[in-house]
């Protein structure tokens, strides 16, 4: 059988689109680089309910210890009690607002955290039910709908409004997830770690965009799990910012990445967060914004409706 394939992606949610072939993207007020800081408030439960999909990253030997895992569960709880307040102090000082993926358990059980986020103008977005119950293709469609609904309903109860954004626990998805999110009113999804600009996700109902997150430079993946020395991780994040800022002279770029209060909120790490935030706020042509602010702007731009054309046929079947 000849080895031959169709043009474009092997799925229909997003188009194949090399960055160099897209129209120039402009951010508001002449900014070159948009930055979105995702501060995760996710809950790690002692024991997920039977049948839940605990991501493989959470099970031995990858991360968590056998039940009952006092070490990991309480270490994560540190974020909700201590780490987040240290982060808030840094963000307040630099007048930067975060986008907070918050799971249903946190929204239902930590109303103080919800208030602290809201009064700072931080944006709360969907983050599943708990971090040890992820989305998976192993779920039925009905189970997945129920799951997304429960995540959204908890945030509506907590904040009075449904969230506009979404980040699945461990970026987990089934093949149905983008369609279900769009149908349930989610406007942007941070799961896709594959670009430096937002892009449109095609679904039958609703209007969904990808707000791509650079998963590799987050505090857990870039430093904690990988055991890259802390200072080297900080350098990696700053270098990312500097190179993207320079590249953004040609077209607007987006840098979104994840931070975890239980990780970067530790006493010996918090000054490095300050180092990073200080570095990013030093320039004037950088727009540090929430996910909704970025997507609300983006959807009005010609970039958002651009669909690449298949290039002139060359070297096609003889």
């Amino acid at each position, binding site marked *: 059988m000849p*080895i031959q394939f169709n043009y474009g992606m092997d799925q229909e949610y997003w188009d194949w689109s090399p*960055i160099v072939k897209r129209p120039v993207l402009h951010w508001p007020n002449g900014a070159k680089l948009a930055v979105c800081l995702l501060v995760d408030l996710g809950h790690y439960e002692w024991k997920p309910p039977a049948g839940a999909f605990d*991501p493989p*990253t959470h099970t031995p030997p990858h991360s968590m210890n056998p039940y009952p895992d006092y070490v990991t569960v309480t270490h994560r709880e540190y974020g909700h009690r201590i780490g987040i307040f240290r982060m808030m102090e840094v963000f307040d000082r630099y007048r930067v607002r975060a986008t907070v993926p918050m799971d249903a358990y946190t929204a239902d059980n930590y109303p103080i955290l919800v208030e602290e986020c809201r009064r700072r103008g931080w944006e709360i977005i969907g983050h599943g039910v708990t971090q040890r119950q992820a989305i998976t*293709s192993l779920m039925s469609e009905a189970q997945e709908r129920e799951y997304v609904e429960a995540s959204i309903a908890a945030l509506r109860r907590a904040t009075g409004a449904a969230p506009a954004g979404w980040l699945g626990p461990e*970026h987990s998805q089934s093949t149905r997830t983008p369609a279900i999110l769009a149908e349930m009113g989610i406007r942007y999804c941070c799961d896709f770690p594959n670009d430096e600009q937002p892009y449109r996700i095609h679904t039958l109902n609703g209007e969904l965009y990808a707000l791509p997150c650079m998963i*590799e430079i987050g505090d857990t*993946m870039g430093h904690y799990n*990988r055991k890259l020395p802390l200072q080297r991780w900080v350098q990696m994040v700053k270098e990312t910012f500097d190179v993207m800022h320079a590249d953004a002279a040609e077209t607007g770029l987006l840098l979104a990445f994840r931070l975890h209060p239980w990780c970067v909120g530790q006493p010996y790490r918090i000054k490095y967060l300050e180092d990073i935030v200080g570095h990013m706020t030093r320039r004037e042509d950088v727009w540090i914004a929430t996910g909704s602010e970025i997507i609300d702007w983006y959807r009005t731009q010609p970039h958002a409706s651009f669909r690449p054309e298949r290039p002139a046929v060359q070297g096609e079947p003889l």
Partner: protein
Amino acid sequence: MRHIPLDRRIGYLPLNNRPRIQWPGNARVAFWVIPNVEHYEYVPAAGTGRQQVAHGNPDFPAPNIPVNVRRDYGSRVGFWRMLRVLDRHNIRCTVNINLAVLDHFPEERDAMVERNWDFCCHGVYNTRAEPKGLTVEQQRAFVQDSIACVKRTTGKQLKGFNVLSRATEELPDILAEHGIIYHADYFHDDQPTPINVTQGKLVSIPYGAEINDSVMTQRNRPWEADTFFEMAKDAFDRLYQEGAENGMVLCLPLHPWCSGYPYRINHLDRILDYVMSHDGVWQATADDIAEYYIANYYDEAVACIARIETSQRQLLAGRQR
């Protein structure tokens, strides 16, 4: 099919007793750069999937967003950022191509064809296991189809394969049968070496297992691109020194979803800057190196391997007496 047993594929050639290679222009080091231009399927076809484990994210049931969709960054963004750096240093690459990319992403294909890169077959998708698991006849068809696919989409003649863990016992014989001249799945040497095949001539071109940017994405490698620069520089320095006596090969395998990130790109630039600033570097493709080696050293190396085998047998016989 009769095939050469695996332990007879590569004859022993000790560093201190082998033909002296002189590269074109009297270069000390043949330097080949091999970007792996890949695609990981959104949902890998059933039964063909290879397990992909990247740091922090072992397998999820498909779609595996943090692992497979993350690789998509390479084609959308990373490839183009890498291309600018490669162009700045006038590097003519050998691309390790997942064949499906040639049809899926013609802009990438055209950029590579415009630059006159050479093509090495890296399977169909990185999420598929063939030729492993195929019968001998199916493997033959696979090699023929790979050659036809590269010809159809790029106009180029395919001359090499790098399929690593997807290689089979019979593969080298089948490659040689079909006019493939190099097989880059071996890590046993810093020079090309003959590969023993049932017919024709096939050589190994050294690939990079450790000097390989993808190593940085592995969970147990807690270092970054500045260290990678040091590794590549140190490797080059040593090979350059030894290359004054006997020409060596330095391979630089790259991945757009590794080196194309903003936090790694400048370190790639430094590696290329360093290597290309030396006289006596032959920046070549694997096709160039294999052809040159076959034309000038293959027969000599085969004869040398035979002599060494004889002398090893004599040493063993002496031990038994």
